């Protein structure tokens, strides 16, 4: 065994840190915080210039063709700094589905544009009445010759206000059993009949609800087979299976350690005990995520390693951020703009941010059910 990531990874990490220190100025951070939008064209441009934007993509598709470990290091460092990646990383996920299931035109036009960060795609899976139970989508797509007529609504369509396309899951056949009868489309967001409404969240992030009223799209907007949307979706969600919030816990611990050192509270044994606990959560969260990367690198099929990384990291972040809030005392209440806010309000912010992490990309309950059934072999 070897727990070193290797010299390449170490120098890549150093280069990333240098770039992030330079690019994520206080002004950029403030703009991002105030806008509630995790996207910044200049910042992404810098990543593209350095070959860090689509690191996992092969070079012939316009990516950097990096190995899984390098990809992971980039993931760790960008997220540790909460770099504005959400709009583009979702777009890349959609582009990946287009490469596999899209039309020739989508592959020719849209995929390269996503890789140049010129096109933003957003997810349209979740609905007001279908959260964890994604397959219960009710947004209707009715075929009419060479066209489809779409009606319905999609929730948590983050970045729809600045996006170009929505990757849409619809019910094309209401007579089929739930998982069948679904079809996916790529629909331009400026299409008539589409209305994007802002939804504000507790972490300050803006998301949206998108309404579809008699939206007619050509059959060429379809991704994958008619009524074959579930397999398209499943392939896309595979990426989410490796979601991890380890880098955020790393950041949390760094901030609290800095606070404890600045205030002298670090000498208190009770504070030390709690810092030690978070240090263990950091280490375990990182290792569970790195194990997934190692398996990918070795070509070992993953079972519940992804759900474990996601479950542990999000639950730990939630618990640790609340525990650190308690530790700090009344000053922890101060939010970002207050100059007296502890560590720029980062800890108070992370406690709010953490609330979403046990929900999206599969709730903790969904992860536990998968681990119990697929991992431990417990009955349904």
């Amino acid at each position, binding site marked *: 065994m070897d727990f070193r990531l290797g010299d390449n990874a170490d120098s890549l990490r150093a280069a990333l840190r240098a770039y992030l220190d330079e690019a994520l100025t206080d002004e950029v951070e403030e703009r991002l915080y105030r806008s509630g939008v995790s996207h910044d064209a200049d910042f992404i441009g810098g990543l593209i210039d350095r070959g860090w934007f689509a690191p996992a993509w092969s070079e012939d598709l316009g990516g950097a063709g990096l190995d899984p470990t390098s990809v992971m290091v980039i993931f760790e460092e960008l997220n540790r700094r909460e770099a504005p990646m959400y709009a583009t990383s979702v777009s890349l996920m959609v582009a990946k589905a287009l490469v596999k299931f899209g039309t020739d035109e989508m592959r020719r036009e849209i995929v390269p544009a996503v890789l140049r960060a010129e096109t933003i795609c957003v997810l349209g899976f979740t609905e007001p009445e279908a959260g964890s139970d994604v397959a219960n989508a009710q947004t209707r797509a009715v075929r009419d010759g060479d066209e489809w007529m779409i009606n319905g609504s999609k929730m948590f369509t983050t970045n729809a206000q600045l996006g170009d396309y929505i990757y849409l899951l619809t019910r094309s056949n209401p007579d089929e059993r739930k998982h069948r009868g679904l079809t996916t489309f790529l629909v331009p967001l400026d299409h008539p009949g589409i209305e994007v409404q802002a939804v*504000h969240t507790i972490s300050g992030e803006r998301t949206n609800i998108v309404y579809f009223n008699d939206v007619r799209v050509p059959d060429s907007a379809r991704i994958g087979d008619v009524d074959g949307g579930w397999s398209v979706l499943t392939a896309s969600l595979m990426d989410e299976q490796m979601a991890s919030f380890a880098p955020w816990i790393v950041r949390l611990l760094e901030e609290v350690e800095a606070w404890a050192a600045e205030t002298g509270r670090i000498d208190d044994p009770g504070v030390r005990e709690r810092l030690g606990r978070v240090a263990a959560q950091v280490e375990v969260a990182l290792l569970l995520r790195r194990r997934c990367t190692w398996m990918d690198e070795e070509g070992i099929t993953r079972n519940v390693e992804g759900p474990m990384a996601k479950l542990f990291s999000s639950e730990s972040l939630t618990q640790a951020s609340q525990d650190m809030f308690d530790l700090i005392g009344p000053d922890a209440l101060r939010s970002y703009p207050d100059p007296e806010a502890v560590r720029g309000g980062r800890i108070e912010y992370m406690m709010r941010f953490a609330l979403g992490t046990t929900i999206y990309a599969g709730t903790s309950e969904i992860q536990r059910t998968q681990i119990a059934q697929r991992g431990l072999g417990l009955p349904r």
Partner: protein
Amino acid sequence: MDLRLSAEQDQLVDAFRSLYAKHAPPDRVRDAELVGHDPELWSQLQGLGVIEMAIDEDRGGWGASMLDLALVAEQHGRHVAPAPLIERQVAARALARLESPRLDDVLSGDRVTSIALHPSVDGVAPAVPAASVADDVLVLVGDALCLVPVSAGSAFENLGSMPLADVGTDGGEVLEGGAVARQVFETALDEWLLLTAAALIGLGARALEIGVEYARERIAFGVPIGSFQALSHPFADSAAALDGARLLAYEAAWAVDEDTDRARELAALAFAFGSESARDASYRSLHVHGGYGFMLEYDIQLYWRRARAWPAVWGAPPDGYRRAADARHGRR
């Protein structure tokens, strides 16, 4: 033992329940988030005599018991009401205990007074509750209890959308010094802890109701999500904890009213245990909302933020448990 409210207490609860239902519905709570204070709600509360009732009759008040105040605070918490009820009551009671003529200004409504929960450090009382909407603040400065006009107060944004401010304490009027000042301060803190506990228990109970209602109606995988043990069992734990916390807060209030030697201990226990119960209940209810839980549009986030923020103005549950142990075993 008798756990029944008196007929007068039933009426008191009804009166405040109606007031809050009318003047502190969720949209009003939202509207008040920027300043953390709804003056119209406050004037309604004042109309019902929330300051007078907190003061003994021989000092010009109506002489409600601590249990009466706790019942009102519980209704206050159920509505996460944006009005600094508890701080103003506690400050007024401290002025009464000090036999300060300043109490008259408060009773007449000419001056609005709050209280700092932590002593002043380097000339500043940090994060004073209700200070940004107060005229004066009672602060322990060294060994002296001072009344400080809030001119130098600087309000700041915070997790609970509360009217908090840091208050410069130079030039305050010394009302009392020495052991008496310290004693009045500690008693005021007991009362704040106890009434905040009652408010948190109301908050937690309402948050649980919101979560249960949602879980009964929301369908996933063909069934109401409330039928999943992953949700229903934590809710059951919260229901038991909140019932217990409520009994504990009432017992603490009764102990204050009866002046038993466990009053300080019980107030601190009620605060710590009530904080935890409210925190868990509101977190669980928020979580079962799925993505809706962290949308500002849904009410449950209003509850979770205050369940976290209200007690933090003084401290966290471990601080409350330590204060209770100090009362039980003597400080070292």
